[in-house]
């Protein structure tokens, strides 16, 4: 079993829906973006193309972050999900230096998005985001346990995201990678990410 994601860049419209869905689901504080969208403009007027690259933790098979973590806070589960144990993390941020995808964030200080102290939503969500430690996407494992897809997948209005078992050759993600030539980001780094992109 190896959970993985396929993102179809042809379908992605760069609406930031995944980023917002992730924030709403996981109540990540200001300065922490488990999911984000990188925009790029290419070409010259009038032949200009704007493209979007949704980013999240790649849940690598051979994670650089896990290798450098001095405290065993970063571990890889049997289902391939890379997690950070906030009880073990000391906040040295070495994993942030090692991650080639910029998927990790240090939560330095508790802050509200809206000023004037935390609102009810933030009060409920922030206990899962202790300060002084590093955090990142965990493929919404709490939703997976209930048989649901990660929030970014379930809420993608363009249906550009697919989620499933990369080890199962008959799964939709495996089929898409095979048939539509799915690509990993920064393959030369050798981390073998579990997130694949279908070319735009």
């Amino acid at each position: 079993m190896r959970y993985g994601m396929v993102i179809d860049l042809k379908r992605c419209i760069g609406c930031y829906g995944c980023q917002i869905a992730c924030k709403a689901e996981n109540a990540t504080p200001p300065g922490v973006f488990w999911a984000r969208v990188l925009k790029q403009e290419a070409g010259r007027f009038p032949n200009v193309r704007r493209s979007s690259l949704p980013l999240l933790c790649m849940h690598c098979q051979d994670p650089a972050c896990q290798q450098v973590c001095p405290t065993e806070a970063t571990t890889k589960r049997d289902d391939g999900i890379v997690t950070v144990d906030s009880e073990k993390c000391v906040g040295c941020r070495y994993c942030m230096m090692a991650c080639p995808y910029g998927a990790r964030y240090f939560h330095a200080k508790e802050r509200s998005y809206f000023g004037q102290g935390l609102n009810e939503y933030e009060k409920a969500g922030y206990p899962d985001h202790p300060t002084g430690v590093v955090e990142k996407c965990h493929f919404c494992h709490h939703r997976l346990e209930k048989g649901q897809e990660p929030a970014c997948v379930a809420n993608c209005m363009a249906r550009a995201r697919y989620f499933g078992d990369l080890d199962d050759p008959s799964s939709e993600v495996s089929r898409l990678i095979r048939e539509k030539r799915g690509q990993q980001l920064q393959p030369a780094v050798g981390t073998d990410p579990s997130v694949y992109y279908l070319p735009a």
Partner: protein
Amino acid sequence: MAVWEDPFQKLSEDLKATLRPQREWVAGRGLFLLLGHFLSGAGAGTWLFSLYFELPAGLLISLVVVALGGLAHLIFLGRLGRAWRIVRRPHSSWISRGLLSMTLFLISGAIYWWLDRSGWATGTLGQVLWGLSLLGVAGILLYKGFVYAVSKAIPFWNTPLLPPLYIAYGVRGGAAILLVAAALGVGGIELKPLELIKLWVVVSSAVLVLIYLAGMSNSGVAARRSVAELLGGRAAVAFYLGVVLLGLVVPIGLGVFSYYGSVSMAVLGLVGLSSLAGDFYVKYCVARAGIYMPLSGEFPTR
């Protein structure tokens, strides 16, 4: 208070940038990490010279400086109370190896210093502790360069040149501390051989800096940008004033002059201080110029 102020404004801009700078290990409390790297390296170098020249005062200075370096490391951490956990992965993490080396050095070094002071350092126990302290020193001098060098995400750091550079700067830092100590009246330090060794190490480190920058300027886009940041960007002032002027020109110039002529102890002390400032700034500049490999060039296309 508005949300989009620093540091979030900065982060927001960084996340949009094609070439994203690393800030965690250089800004805010990140300076303590750099201070820790600087002090632990210079302290380890001081131990080497103090053993060679048989300077009990130098041994004590070395222990104090490395301990301060360790403290600076700890202050940097987000969760200080869990620092003991850092020793758990020496098989794969250079930070674990660094902390273990520092601990080994401080314990064995402190006992060795006490034995030396009591005149018992020549016994078997003294020799074992002498060896262990040197093992700790070797670990301290080695680990910093490797901490950076194994980071594939930041091409400017991901080079085998950084470990020798950091070792050279640790060794010269040790010589510089002893020069400052001599200027402050710590007795028993033979200045002439120390000056010569220091001059040789400073010249070597200058050559290493040049090779490092030349190598990086022929690497990928992120490494080239890092070099540009050092030579003409946001780290340029620190590089030219700190690394080049204070760290290389002053120690080499006055070092040559003092070897062939004679200069006062105060001037030698200034050479040491100047050199130490250069040691710190080389670590600052390497960290400040660190830029993540670009993701935007990776947009998969057919």
